C-alpha cells in the first residue's frame, strides 16, 4: 500500500535530487539517477501485488491510488524499459550539455507514467498525464533542433488530446458526482445516449494522440526523431503505450456498454490498420534512421490498436503481447541508432555503411530486434503477428487482414534497408575509424534483444500477467486454454508448438556453422568488398559497388497516389489559416486612441440596442 506512494515519492524526489546534486558532481548525479530507477523497480517487483487501493482527498474530490492487474502489465513495460534504458542513457549522454535537466526530466517522465498506471481516478490520472506531457515535451526540444516546428506540434497535439480528456472528465464528474474510474464504469449505463458517445469519443481522442493513431499522428515522426535516442527508447517504447493503456480500458469497459458502440470499435480498428499501412510506407521512404524508426513506431502502434480494438480475447492477447514486444524491440532499435550516431556522428542510412565488423555487438542487437519487428520466428514479434492474423480471421475482418498483411510485408523493405544501410554493404574509408560502442551501451541493447528472444521462445512468461490483466477487464481466464485460442501455443501457453521444429532448424544451422567453420578455418581468408574481380577488371578504390541511395523506386512509383496526400500538410494549412485569422483579430487593436474611443461609443450603442436580449 504505502509502497505505491513511496515509489512515486522516490521518482519525484529523485528527480529533484538528481537535478541539484548534479550541480555538485556528475558522478553523484549518475548514481542517484540509477538508484532512483533501480530501487523503485526492485520495490515494485518484490512487494507489489495487484488490487491495492489507497484513498486521498483533494479539493473536495475523492482521489484514489492503487494498482490493477491490467496496469500491472504496463508497469512491467515501463519499469523494465526505463531501468535498462537508464543505464544506456548514462553512457550515451556522457559529455552532453544540460545533463542535470535531462536526467531529472527522465525521472519525471517515468514517475508520471507510473503515476498514470497507479491512479484509479480521473483527476490523479490527468495530473500525471500532463506531467508526462510536459516533461516529455522538454525532452523533444532538448536537442534544440526544429524546436518551434516539432516541439510546438507535439505540445499542441498533446494538449488537444489532454483537453479532450479533461472535457470528458469534467462531464463525467458533473454527471455522476465522482471522478473514480470504477464508479464511472459502473454507472456508465445511466448516462444519456448522446453523452455516452461524446464521453467515449473524447476519451478515445485523448488516448489516440499519445498512441499516434491516424489522423492524430503527425506529431510523432518529428518528436520521436528529435528527442535524444536514449530518451526515445522510452518515449516510443513505454510512453506511447500509455495511450494504448487508456484506449484499451475505454474500448473494453466503456464502449462495450454503448448500444451500437460496436461501430466505434470498427472505426478505431480501421484507423489502426490505416495507421499501420501508411506508417510503414513512410518508414520505407525515410533515409534518416531515426525518422524511419519513428514511422515504424507509428505503424507498429497501429497493429496494437487493431488488436485492442477488435477486442476478441485472442485479438486482445495479440495486441497486448505486441505492446510488450514493441516496447522491447523498438527501444533496442532506437538505442542502436543512438549508439551508431554517437560513434559515427550521423544517423543517415545512406551515409553510414559497413559497420558490421566495427560494431558487431550492436549489429547483433539490431539483427535480433529487426527479426522480431519483421515477425520472423522464433522471436516474439512472430507470435504476436500470428495471433493478430488469426484473431482477424476469426472475427471475419478479411479486408483489414489485407491492409495489415500489406503493411507487414512492406515492413520487410525498411527492415532490410535498416540492416543493409548501416551494417552491410561496402566498407568505406570514411568509417574505418569507427569503434564498437562502450559496453554500458551495448549490454542494455543485448539484454533487451535477449528478452525478445526469450519471450519468443517462452511467451508464457508475459502471457500470464496479460491473462490476469484481461480477466480484470472482464475476459474469461485463458489460463490453460491457450491452445483453444491460437493454434500456435501449446496447452499452457508457455511455449510455442512450432518450437520443436525451430529447435531442429537451429540445431542443424548451428551444426553446419560449426562444421563449416572448423573445416574451412585454415583456408579462411578475410576479403574486403573490393577484393574481387568483375569481368576481368579489378574495381578501383573509389568505385562504389553497393548502393544505398534511392532504394525501392518502383515500389514508390506504385504507391505514389497514396502517399501524395499527407496529413501534416492539411494541419499545416489549417494552422497557417488560423494564424492569419488571429493576425486579423490582432489588428482590432490598432494602437490608435481614437479608434479605441470609437469602440467605446459603439459598445455603448450595441449594449443599448440589444438591452432587451442581453439583460
Amino acid at each position, binding site marked *: 500500500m504505502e509502497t505505491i506512494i513511496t515509489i512515486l515519492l522516490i521518482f519525484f524526489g529523485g528527480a529533484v535530487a538528481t537535478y541539484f546534486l548534479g550541480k555538485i558532481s556528475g558522478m553523484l548525479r549518475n548514481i542517484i539517477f540509477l538508484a532512483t530507477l533501480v530501487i523503485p523497480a526492485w520495490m515494485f517487483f518484490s512487494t507489489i501485488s495487484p488490487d491495492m487501493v489507497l484513498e486521498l482527498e483533494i479539493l473536495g474530490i475523492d482521489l484514489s491510488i492503487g494498482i490493477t492487474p491490467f496496469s500491472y502489465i504496463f508497469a512491467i513495460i515501463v519499469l523494465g524499459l526505463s531501468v535498462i534504458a537508464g543505464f544506456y542513457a548514462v553512457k550515451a549522454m556522457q559529455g552532453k550539455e544540460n545533463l542535470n535537466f535531462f536526467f531529472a526530466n527522465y525521472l519525471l517522465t517515468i514517475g508520471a507514467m507510473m503515476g498514470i498506471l497507479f491512479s484509479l481516478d480521473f483527476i490523479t490520472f490527468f495530473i500525471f498525464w500532463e506531467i508526462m506531457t*510536459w516533461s516529455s515535451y522538454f525532452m523533444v*526540444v532538448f536537442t*534544440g533542433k526544429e524546436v518551434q516546428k516539432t516541439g510546438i506540434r507535439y*505540445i499542441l497535439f498533446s494538449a488537444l488530446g489532454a483537453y479532450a480528456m479533461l*472535457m470528458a472528465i469534467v462531464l463525467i464528474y*458533473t454527471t455522476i458526482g465522482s471522478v473514480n474510474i470504477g464508479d464511472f464504469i459502473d454507472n456508465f449505463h445511466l448516462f444519456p445516449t448522446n453523452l455516452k458517445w461524446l464521453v467515449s469519443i473524447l476519451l478515445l481522442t485523448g488516448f489516440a494522440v499519445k498512441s499516434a493513431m491516424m489522423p492524430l499522428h503527425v506529431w510523432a515522426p518529428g518528436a520521436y526523431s528529435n528527442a535524444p535516442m536514449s530518451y526515445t527508447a522510452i518515449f516510443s517504447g513505454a510512453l506511447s503505450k500509455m495511450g494504448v493503456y487508456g484506449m484499451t480500458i475505454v474500448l473494453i469497459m466503456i464502449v462495450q456498454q454503448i448500444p451500437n458502440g460496436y461501430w466505434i470499435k470498427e472505426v478505431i480498428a480501421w484507423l489502426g490498420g490505416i495507421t499501420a499501412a501508411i506508417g510503414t510506407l513512410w518508414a520505407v521512404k525515410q533515409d534518416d534512421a531515426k525518422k524511419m524508426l519513428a514511422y515504424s513506431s507509428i505503424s507498429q502502434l497501429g497493429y496494437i490498436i487493431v488488436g485492442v480494438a477488435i477486442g476478441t480475447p485472442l485479438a486482445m492477447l495479440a495486441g497486448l503481447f505486441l505492446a510488450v514486444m514493441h516496447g522491447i524491440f523498438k527501444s533496442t532499435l532506437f538505442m542502436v541508432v543512438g549508439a551508431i550516431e554517437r560513434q559515427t556522428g550521423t544517423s543517415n542510412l545512406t551515409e553510414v555503411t559497413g559497420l558490421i565488423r566495427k560494431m558487431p555487438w550492436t549489429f547483433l542487437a539490431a539483427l535480433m530486434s529487426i527479426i522480431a519487428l519483421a515477425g520472423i520466428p522464433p522471436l516474439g514479434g512472430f507470435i504476436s503477428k500470428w495471433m493478430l492474423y488469426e484473431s482477424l480471421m476469426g472475427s471475419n475482418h478479411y479486408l483489414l487482414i489485407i491492409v495489415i498483411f500489406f503493411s507487414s510485408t512492406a515492413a520487410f523493405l525498411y527492415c532490410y534497408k535498416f540492416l543493409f544501410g548501416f551494417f552491410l554493404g561496402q566498407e568505406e574509408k570514411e568509417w574505418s575509424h569507427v569503434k564498437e560502442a562502450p559496453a554500458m551501451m551495448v549490454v542494455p541493447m543485448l539484454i533487451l534483444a535477449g528478452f525478445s528472444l526469450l519471450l519468443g521462445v517462452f511467451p508464457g512468461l508475459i502471457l500470464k500477467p496479460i491473462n490476469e490483466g484481461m480477466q480484470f477487464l472482464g475476459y474469461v481466464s485463458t489460463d490453460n486454454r491457450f491452445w483453444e485460442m491460437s493454434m500456435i501455443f501449446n496447452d499452457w501457453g508457455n511455449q510455442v508448438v512450432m518450437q520443436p521444429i525451430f529447435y531442429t532448424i537451429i540445431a542443424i544451422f548451428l551444426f553446419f556453422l560449426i562444421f563449416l567453420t572448423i573445416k574451412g578455418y585454415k583456408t579462411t581468408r578475410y576479403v574486403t568488398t573490393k577484393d574481387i574481380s568483375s569481368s576481368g577488371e579489378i574495381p578501383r578504390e573509389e568505385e562504389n559497388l553497393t548502393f544505398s541511395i534511392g532504394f525501392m523506386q518502383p515500389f514508390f512509383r506504385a504507391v505514389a497516389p497514396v502517399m501524395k496526400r499527407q496529413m501534416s500538410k492539411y494541419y499545416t494549412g489549417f494552422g497557417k489559416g488560423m494564424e492569419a485569422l488571429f493576425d486579423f483579430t490582432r489588428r482590432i487593436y490598432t494602437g490608435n486612441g481614437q479608434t479605441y474611443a470609437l469602440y467605446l461609443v459603439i*459598445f455603448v450603442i450595441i449594449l443599448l440596442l440589444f438591452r432587451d436580449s442581453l439583460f
Partner: protein
Amino acid sequence: MVGSPVFLIAIPLLAAFLIPLLGMVWKELVRIVPGLVLAYLTFLSATLYIDVINSDTIVETIAGWRAPWGIDLVFSPLTGFLSTIMTFMGFIVWLYSYRFKRNVEFEAAKKYFIFLMLLVAASVGIVITGDIFNQFVFIEITGISAYALTAFYTGRNSAEAAFKYLVMGSLSASALLIAIIIVYAQLGTLNMAEIAANIDNMNVEYRIIAMIFFIIGIGVEAEIFPLNGWAPDAYTEAPGPVGGAFAGIVVKAGIYAMVRMMFTLFNISGPMQILIIIGMITLIIAETSALRQDKLKRMLAYSSIGQMGLVLVAFGMGTQAGVFAALFLMLNHAIIKPMLFLSGSYLEFNTKNKYIKEITGMGKKMPVVSAIFVLGALAISGLPPFSGFWSKLSVLTAAADENMILIITLVLIISLVEIVYYFRVINRLFFFDYDLEISVEPHKPGWNGMVALFVLAGIILFIGFYPSSVTGFLDLAARDLMDTHDYINNVLQLGQSIIQ
C-alpha cells in the same frame, strides 16, 4: 485588534503625502517607508481577514455618519480576501522595485513610490468601500496614479500609452458618473446596501440603462473587450513592476467593482448572459491576439486580458461553483501574472526593442529567472501540478454543472492557443540552437527581486500541491458574494460596527 479597515486607505494616503517631506530628511526613506507601509497593510489586512472569517463581517462607518447617510467600509470574507491579495502584491511589487529604482534618480523614485502607494490604497478602497460615489472616487484615483505610472519612463511611447489610457479612463469615468446620477435620481441614495435593498423600486428601463453605463464605466479598469485598447500599450510601456501591479491589483479591483455591481447592486441571480458573452469575446480576442505578438510584455498583457475574460465568464455563471472558480482564477492570476511580468522584465531588461526574439537563449545566461518564467508559463496555461490547473478545473466543472458544453469547448480551444504562445517563449528561452546572435547582456537581478520571485513561485507550487489550503477561504468569499441579503443586513443594521 491591530487597526481598523479605514487604516488600509488612510495610512497609505498619508504616507504618500509624507514621502516628499521624508525625502528631504533622508533620501533613502523614500524607498524604505513605502515598504514599511505596505508590509503593515498586508499584516493588517491579513489579521482583519482572519478575524472576519472567524467572527463576522466588519462594517465601519466613517466620521460617525451611519449608513445609509455616511460612507461605510465593508470588510467581509470577500473584500478581505481581495484586499489581502492586493496589499500583499503591493508589497511584492515594492520589494521587487526597491533596488530596481536605485539606478533611477531621486525625483523619479519619489514619484514612482508615491504613485505606487496611491495605486494600492485606491484599489483597496474600490474593494472595501460600501458607497458607489466613494467607489467612483477611488476608481479615479487608481486611474490617475495608473496613468502617471504608465508614463514613468517619460518617453514618447510611454506618453502615448498613458494618453490613450487617460482618454479611455476619462470617457469611462463620465459613463460611470452618468450611471451614478441615474441611480441617485431614482433611489436617492448612494449606499450600495440601500440601493440593493431598494433596487426593485427602480424603473426597469432606468435600471438597465444604469447597468449599461456601469459596465462601460468599470469595464475600462476591468479590461473587457472592446474597452481594453489601452491595456496592451500601457502594460508594454510601463515599467515591469507596474505591469505586475496592473495585473495583480488594478484589474482585480475593476473586476470586483463589476461583479459587486452585478451581484449586489442590481441583485441579479442566476446566469448573467451579458458577463458570459463579454467575457467570452474578451477571452477569445485577447488570447488569439496574444499569439501574434512579437513583444514579450505585450503578449503577457493580452494574456492578462484574456484571463480576466475567463474570470468574467466564471462569474457570469452566477452559481456558487462559478463564483468560487472565478475567485480561484483571480487568486492565481494575481500571483502568476505579476510573477511573469517581474521575471519577464528582468529577461528583456537590456534588449533594445523588447522583442521576444531578442531574449532567445536567455535561459543560459539567467537560468533561475528563466526557470521562474517557465514555471509561471506552465502554471498560467493550466498544466498540473501547478496552481493554474486547479482553477481551470474548477471553471470547467462549474460550467459543466450548468451544462454549458459550448463554453467548455471554447475555453479549452483557447487554452490550446495559450499553450502555443507560452511554449514558443519557453522554447526561445531554453531550447534554441545557439548559433543565433545573442548580443544582449543580461541584467543582474538584485537580491530583493529574486526574493520576490521566489516567494511568488513558492506560493504557486504550494497552491498547486495543496489546493485545499485556499479552497476554504475561496468558498467563504464566494458565499459572501452570493448572499446579497446578508450584505444588506450587515451594512444597514451594522453587524459588528466600529464608530469613530
